[in-house]
């Protein structure tokens, strides 16, 4: 029985530990995500975003609730069956790129292909296509250590797309990139997934993405809450001048009663080195 929704989650909770020290990382979350939808998950640090994403991707079992991906209820599957679900249905993009150091760009992209029928040989044309599309042709035989951050993340995106999964899960994919490169990478990701009609669930602190998202889920203390988009408290990054929502920002710095908010770790680093240069300007 085909479902019209790619993801259905019902009353999903994840608790770590027991008793006094128990953490309710995700607490009774229900959601539906349609095919081709771009959904943002936002929320303060520690609110359960990564935990929720892990459960949607079949990496972590909920303490309670059920999750269905592409019509398959993954919460009742045996441990040994989950790797196959991840390989076929989910493409992961991580904050720290996570490429295999010993493999070239092309081999990294092809890595998940060995996990599905057809294998690497059948996936070669698709890999070529992604290499072209992500502008990695010159880097095809390079090792990850020779790539820039933006290039690494493009390779990771190609790897996530190689098996043509209906769902892409990305956890702060631009967190290790400067804002310009981050924006580029984000645009490429959306471009391809829109074209190929794949759903993307994206955890990010970048408010610029909100404008193109179909839906924004706001997570706080493990619970989904409605948040109207007017609820922003906008401040400017003193280094690059970017507009940032102070509420969700992760890169912050306090000095003599003033709180500064940055778009990225890069900007924060620059600021901390010579604060006066930016504050007095």
């Amino acid at each position, binding site marked *: 029985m085909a479902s019209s929704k790619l993801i259905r989650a019902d009353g999903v909770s994840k608790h770590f530990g027991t008793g006094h020290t128990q953490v309710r990382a995700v607490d009774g979350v229900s959601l539906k995500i349609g095919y081709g939808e771009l959904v943002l998950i936002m929320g303060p640090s520690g609110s359960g975003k990564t935990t929720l994403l892990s459960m949607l991707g079949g990496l972590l079992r909920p303490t309670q609730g059920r999750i269905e991906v592409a019509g398959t209820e993954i919460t009742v599957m045996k441990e040994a069956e989950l790797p196959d679900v991840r*390989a076929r249905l989910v493409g992961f993009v991580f904050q720290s790129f*996570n490429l295999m150091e*010993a493999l070239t760009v092309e081999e990294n992209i092809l890595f998940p292909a060995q*996990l599905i029928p057809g294998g690497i040989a059948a996936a070669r044309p698709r890999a070529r296509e992604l290499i072209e599309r992500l502008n990695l042709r010159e880097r095809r035989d390079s090792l990850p250590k020779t790539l820039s951050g933006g290039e690494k993340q493009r390779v990771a995106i190609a790897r996530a797309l190689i098996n043509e999964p209906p769902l892409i899960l990305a956890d702060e994919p631009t967190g290790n990139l400067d804002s310009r490169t981050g924006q580029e990478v984000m645009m490429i990701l959306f471009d391809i997934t829109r074209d190929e009609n794949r759903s993307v669930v994206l955890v990010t602190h970048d408010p610029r993405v909100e404008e193109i998202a179909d839906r924004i889920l706001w997570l706080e203390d493990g619970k989904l809450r409605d948040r109207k988009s007017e609820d922003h408290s906008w401040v400017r990054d003193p280094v690059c001048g970017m507009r940032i929502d102070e509420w969700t920002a992760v890169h912050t710095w306090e000095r003599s009663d003033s709180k500064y908010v940055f778009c990225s770790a890069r900007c924060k680093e620059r600021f901390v080195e010579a604060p006066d240069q930016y504050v007095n300007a």
Partner: protein
Amino acid sequence: MMRWTLKSLGTQIASTLASAGGVAGAFLFVLFLEAVFLGESKQIVAYIEHMEPDIWVMQHGVSNMHMASSFVWDWKLDAVVEMDGVEKVTSILYVNTMVRAGDRDWFTYVVGLVEGDKRAGPWAMKSGSASPGPGEIVIPALFAESSGAGLGSSVSVADKKFTVVGLSLGTFSMANSVAFVSFGDLVNILSAGGTVSYGLVDLEPGSDAAAMARRIEAEVEKVSALPHPEFVRNDFNMAMRMGVDVVAFMRVIGSALAVAIIAFTALVQVSRRRRELAIAKALGVTNRSIYFSVVLQTVLITTAGYAVALALALGVAPMISLFVPEVTLLVSTGSLLRMGAVALVVAVIAAMVPAYMVNQVDPLTAFQG
């Protein structure tokens, strides 16, 4: 998966090579020990192998020569000579004792030869005479070289002085050499008038040695008679038994060492690859495939170690004998095959340790920054 495993090994080339080298060392240690042991055991039976009579006759109840003592009245052997089908009986006296040359002592088979009869004497000579007269001795050439003795030197057997008149070849072994004196001198040393130790019985062509041996035991009272092959086998087994426990023990130690080295390397490599293993799990690689990748690693390292040990054993063993002729090395196919089987077991056991770690790797760590 294969490619990833191999290439990852390639990036840890130093630890991989060190580990393969260590494994090779452990295997080589065992191979070398077995080769020395086998070579020495073979050398211990060199004398009786070269004599090759049809039948050995000895004191009743004795069944070999190494570490044995045997006395038979000489008239019993005279009776054997009279039997139909017997062509010749050569008597020797024999004792296992120390021979002192220069300031070195050698554990030696001293064989007393009937004067003028070369049948039971040395089979290859470097120089001098092969049949010692009274007060004379034939010693192994190697024995002379390493103690500085030569033709005309004086050596002592059980406190009696002998003059070296011949240097023989193929009679040396670290455990047990062979020297020859005259029958009469050994009678004096052993106070054994009227007896012999062994009779070497040569039969007329076409005789059945086994049947003849049974006949001798039936017709001559209180002697044992064994066909040559059986006698050699008994002696070889006796020689082997002396060192078998030591070698078995060393074999276990060597294999355990190899297991430890490989397990440790696999452990180090798994923990270094922990992050990538977590990523692979997150991407959908099964525990079983990852475990396969780890086993493949240990098998490759073990195979490399085994190959190096094999090459060295086959290539270098002959050279060792060339430079250190005292040591007789014999690398047997059995020893190599056994080592191969051990290597396989070693690899699998060694892979069990990291297998546990593979299960522990948490794919969620891929999300950490």
